């Protein structure tokens, strides 16, 4: 099977690149598009460090064959920062010490974004459920749960017209 040209909307921009047969979305993002925020922790769907949003849903990019999402829309951590401004999830992760080595952070933030997009007022259980596919070996998870709750609170506050 020859390589093929794949087209995706990545962080709002249409991108085209050549993908070898069976190439994963993770490899294409990192190697073809230079988007390195998503990480490879296991390459087997077990750690969540490669999580990106595909049409709004969190997916383990290491398990997604890129041709299966062709023409879809992909959001990575690079697309969360706009014009150098951090969003609520990012700033809450800093303020709540939810990042240590930082290797899991990209995946954690992406699942948090997906959660808050569909549920602006999650319970702690909702947060724990949302990050249950993501491994963090440094923080012990508690600061991450607190950061996501705090991000939700900040986002709700901003949504209230003054």
């Amino acid at each position: 099977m020859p390589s093929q040209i794949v087209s995706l909307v990545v962080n709002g921009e249409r991108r085209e690149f050549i993908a070898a047969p069976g190439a994963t979305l993770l490899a294409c993002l990192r190697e073809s598009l230079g988007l390195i925020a998503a990480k490879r922790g296991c390459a087997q769907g077990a750690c969540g460090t490669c999580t990106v949003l595909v049409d709004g849903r969190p997916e383990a990019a290491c398990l997604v064959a890129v041709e299966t999402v062709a023409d879809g829309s992909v959001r990575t951590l690079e697309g969360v920062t706009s014009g150098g401004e951090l969003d609520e999830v990012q700033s809450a992760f800093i303020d709540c010490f939810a990042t240590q080595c930082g290797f899991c952070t990209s995946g954690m933030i992406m699942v948090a974004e997906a959660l808050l997009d569909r549920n602006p007022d999650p319970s702690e259980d909702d947060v724990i459920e949302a990050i249950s596919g993501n491994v963090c070996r440094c923080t012990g998870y508690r600061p991450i749960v607190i950061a996501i709750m705090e991000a939700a609170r900040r986002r709700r506050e901003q949504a209230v017209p003054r």
Partner: protein
Amino acid sequence: MTYRLAPIDTGAFVAERDGDHHTVIGSVVRRSDARGHVTGRTEFFEDVAAPRLAHLKMHRSARHHARITDVDVSGALAVPGVLRVLTHADVPNNVYTVLKLIGVEPDDEPVLAVDKVRYLGEPICAVVAETEAAALEGAAAIEVGYEDLPPVFDVEEALKEGAPLVNEYQGQNYFVYEGHHCRRIRFGDVEKAFGQADHVFEWRYQSSPIEQAPVETTGCVVVPQADGRLRIHSDTQACFFTLDNTALILGVPFNKLRIVGGTVGGGFGGKVDVVVEPIACVAAMAVDRPVKFVYDRAEEMQVSSPRAAERIVIKDAVMDDGRIIGRKVTLYVDAGAYARHSPYGTTKAAAHLPGPYTIPNVWADCHCVFTNRTPSSAMRGFGVTIADFALESQMDRIARALDMDPLQLRLINAYRDGDLKAHRKIAEGTALVEVIQKAAELAGHELPEAYRRMSSTTREGL
């Protein structure tokens, strides 16, 4: 800010600090690297873009202990995309120890196995290829002939007369400390103490190896420079060990290497051994291209060095009132097949005995033992953590046997400033008594007046 968990000091002691001059403890300091982490801009070693990057994968031992009779790499060379297959003959100085630069001898570990394998998963050949898939396919196509040797997996078995010899470079199945077969403590006379004691308690403790399991696996990218130097992007926790050991293995001056490091996706001690960089450098020189060697998750779990399994036997001479008058410890660290950091870990274990207690008679033998298991090495407080598990379990069991409060037992035996420790050092700046008192208070654990009045600075009340 009520949502904040860290720093921890917002609770119990905050009232005591009012009006004092401690302005750092308890204040919020933003991590300097946090912005990079939350924007995805922190550069980990694998994020380095290196044009014409080649990939390295290992063919590893399928035996615990065996003589290598034959290595056939022709299958690997036939795989499309395979550039080179490296064996021990390609490594300029093929034997090393991580700690040789601080005088730990002898060199006892080949970069690539020569005539023998000593643990399951030991690297034998390195395959360098255009793609990761080709490197894996090449590594799988190598055929190694083995002649099995009896393996030994247990520390006490390994020390028995007639046990199979694991590591010929060491010459015996234990690390030699200044002419001694183990790290020893001799202080007072434990045997006399056992004779005088109201009770003698002896218990045995065993731990398993523990994998650090960093979320980023161990790896490096080596980029040959136009000036002939090698630039090594690594997630090592020990840039200088890596620089020095790699230069010695390559047989080049230290200034031929440049390490770019310091960004570690979780280490916990698991990224202190110099394992991936030397062979990746040999490969990069051989193909004159950038080379990446990164463990997959299975390699990280199976062949990266874990915390050592330890076996600890503690025998205590105890009086009816709870005073421990003698403690005898026999401790075995399972180093696995090679030394790595385990000789140092065993020394740390010995330095930690007999725990934070003043005991007038102490005897300890701490053995660093070689077996045919995965080499163990550093992990968060190695040598100390498992010793503490054993020592504090022992204290609880003694308390139970004497029907005594476990905290009171510890307060009676806790070291005080001015006490002579078993290592013949005078204890100073001790605080165990106060820590126990405060912990008891926080936990609502009632201590009698005499115990609440105890202090680390006097022997009053003992």
